[in-house]
């Protein structure tokens, strides 16, 4: 089985690779369209800013490549947000794989900091991506923008209101948290994506 990690101008690509190595597997890190299309699984990670990331993907035609993938794809953090239709972060049109929109946190409670940094619960888990993961498990989040709840929501988190911490449509999956940094829970989710999910 080949796993490809999408190489682009967003941080933490290596962290995902190292997490795969910790659970006993590996991946190629590539921006080559053919390698991405022929991999069995694709991980689309990312930490950074939406508009510069989208601009980078478009310049290289990677936006079309990613949206056209037919094998299981897992977007992580910014990767998941870029798979949505639009982000408020610099008014960015994204890939449109998920129709949900991405907006900035504006918590009424001023003690809730933006970005959200730290461990929060994932609830209402609805996908085989979360097989063996208990309701209310804690995952590690670092983000200032969030996807709304929609028909593709497979995990929900509360930070001054509920938002989508997981999305799924056809072969595309996305998680807002960082499974590569979420201890044993995150490793279970990565294992599920790599070894349990076939479509």
């Amino acid at each position, binding site marked *: 089985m080949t796993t490809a990690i999408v190489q682009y101008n967003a*941080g*933490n690509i*290596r*962290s995902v690779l*190292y*997490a795969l*190595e*910790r659970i006993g597997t590996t991946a190629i890190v590539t921006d080559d369209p053919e390698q991405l299309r022929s991999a069995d699984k694709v991980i689309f990670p990312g*930490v*950074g*800013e939406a508009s510069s990331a989208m601009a980078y993907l478009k310049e290289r035609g990677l936006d079309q490549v990613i949206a056209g993938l037919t094998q299981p794809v897992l977007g992580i953090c910014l990767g998941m947000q870029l798979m949505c239709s639009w982000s408020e972060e610099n008014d960015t049109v994204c890939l449109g794989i998920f129709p949900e929109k991405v907006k900035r946190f504006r918590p009424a409670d001023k*003690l*809730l*900091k*933006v*970005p*959200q*940094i*730290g*461990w*929060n*619960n994932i609830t209402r888990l609805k996908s085989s991506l979360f097989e063996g993961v208990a309701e209310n498990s*804690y995952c*590690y*989040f*670092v*983000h200032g923008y969030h996807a709304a709840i929609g028909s593709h929501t497979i995990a929900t988190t*509360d*930070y001054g209101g509920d938002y989508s911490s997981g999305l799924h449509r056809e072969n595309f999956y996305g998680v807002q948290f*960082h499974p*590569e*940094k*979420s*201890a*044993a829970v*995150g*490793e279970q989710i990565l294992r599920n994506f790599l070894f349990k999910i076939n479509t």
Partner: protein
Amino acid sequence: MLTKRIIPCLDIKDGRTVKGTNFVDLRDAGDPVELGRLYAEQGADELVFLDITATVEKRKTLRELVNRISHGINIPFTVGGGISSVEDVSVLLQHGADKISVNTAAFKNPALITDLEKSFGSQCVVLAIDTRLEEDGNWYVYLNGGRTRTERLCTDWAKEGVARGAGEILLTSMNHDGTKQGFALDITAELSRSLQVPVIASGGGGNAAHFAEVFEKAGADAALAASIFHFKEVAIPDLKAELAARGLPIRR
């Protein structure tokens, strides 16, 4: 619900863990990767590795250590100590660090914070501030591991740092560090209430009651300690159980 974070700090010299009391009298407390993995298994929410090596080999040994840490540990970690350029940070992030902390170099060249935020995003830029309460009633910024006093007030510098793009503040009270008598509640509260970004309280944590009060009374988002964990005076699972029993949001 977002939880309060417990962060063990590992001071590193020549690849080994040390901890000073009031920044002097270093004692050896083990291998950083082994200790870090142990803390992660015990429920630490994050780790901070602070490199105090002063040799010319520093960059290489730190890079290698970060590489080992990122292969061995499944929770987020921050690396700090003598980081002074975008290039330094780029190398450490490429080797798997999640965040980096800057202190003296950022104070001397505040544009460094702006450059780091532009290059890597504020989520990976932690501004570490060492501060001391003086007889005039003000908290002053200290540099060089607490050896150099400045005329700058802690709150002013913290606000500038956040405006320039720091994503978190790691606040160490030199008055409290090493005392195990509790965190500096007033300055921590002042920063956590006035800043948009999370504040990590550091210095003085000696027991669960100290951690509870810095979260409840001072509004800290995270609390950092070193020697109480290294010398097994406080066990992380016991600490988290006690904080949870007091009704604080804690990951267990």
